[in-house]
């Protein structure tokens, strides 16, 4: 090798530190996977053993045709096509809160099927297209 003796020594020390650091990183990452949950999917709510009393977030698709408005209170269904959760919300909805698109609701679980939300956020997907393209895609879907 062309490296000098001191460079080799520094490389050795660095690789040792890098190995130790990656082990630590691996453990932190694994822990984060379990503990840091930004929102629960409907399937994860179903698998919960006890109902958390603190504020949590749930996320999923807004079921088409499920939004019902009574005075200022909205009730709709968050779904992952397998499990459904009713969400009750009193307040203003963001512009991109649309049936068939994703949403994240912040609030408290009453039981595994009913969620009382204090905040509703719209989660948009990674697809960007002009309206004409979106319309023609919709038509294609209907024709199938």
């Amino acid at each position, binding site marked *: 090798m062309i490296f000098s003796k001191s460079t080799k020594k520094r490389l050795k020390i660095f690789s040792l530190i890098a190995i130790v650091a990656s082990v630590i990183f691996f453990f932190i990452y694994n822990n984060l996977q379990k503990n840091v949950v930004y929102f629960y999917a409907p399937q994860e709510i179903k698998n919960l053993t006890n109902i958390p009393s603190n504020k949590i977030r749930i996320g999923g698709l807004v079921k088409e045709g499920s939004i019902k408005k009574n005075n200022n209170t909205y009730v709709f269904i968050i779904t992952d096509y397998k499990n459904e959760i009713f969400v009750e919300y009193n307040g203003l909805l963001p512009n991109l809160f649309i049936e068939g698109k994703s949403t994240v609701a912040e609030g408290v679980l009453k039981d595994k099927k009913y969620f009382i939300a204090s905040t509703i956020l719209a989660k948009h997907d990674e697809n*960007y*297209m002009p309206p004409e393209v979106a319309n023609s895609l919709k038509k294609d879907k209907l024709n199938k």
Partner: protein
Amino acid sequence: MFGIFKPRTFFNLANTSIFWLKIVLVFALIVGLILALVLSPIDYLQKDTVRIMYVHVPSSWISLFIFLIIGTSSFISLIFKLRVFSVYAKSLAPIGLVFSLISVVTGSLWGYPTWGTFWSWDGRLTSMFVLVLTYILYVSLWSFIKNYNSAEKITNIVGIVGLINIPIIKFSVEWWNTLHQPASITLTAAPTIHSSMLAPLLIMFFSFCILSLIIFLIRYKYEIINFRVNKK
């Protein structure tokens, strides 16, 4: 082959190329801005709000990319004692800091009309916040530590350690449930952005790259001159 890394060669290269880079920048920026703000179509859901993307996404990419270079340069400087690489990292850092701030600010301005909130501590936003803090730490260490050699060593370490955050930012949207949407442009799959919106995005990214390169070369020249003056 490595002659380009000699300070004198690089200095002369910087001197001759800055003029041409400026011309390229002006053209790319004019074309990019006209495409992004006027000619590109509105999004089918977000309407005109989508135009924030043309600043937000390139800024985010560049802030990540610059930190990748800072980390790699720090490694080369610390281990192989090619100390000119510390000068590269030092010259790049403020550019990355500004672009990461632009990314966070435009991101929260975009978040309010689309998500319904300016900020939320999900995986992507939190890890991006950590990147901004790392940049601030890196830049301030260079200015607070008066002894050049110790400043160099400590910032090298910060650069290498900060590198861990880059894959976390990149993959946060895949590893965890996040409010932030997953990447639209990946190396493995076709982009999920319509071509009429992808073109202005890439041109804006190109012009931001050229802008960063120009500022980097100016800052590099300043650092080298500063170094010579202080030595005498």
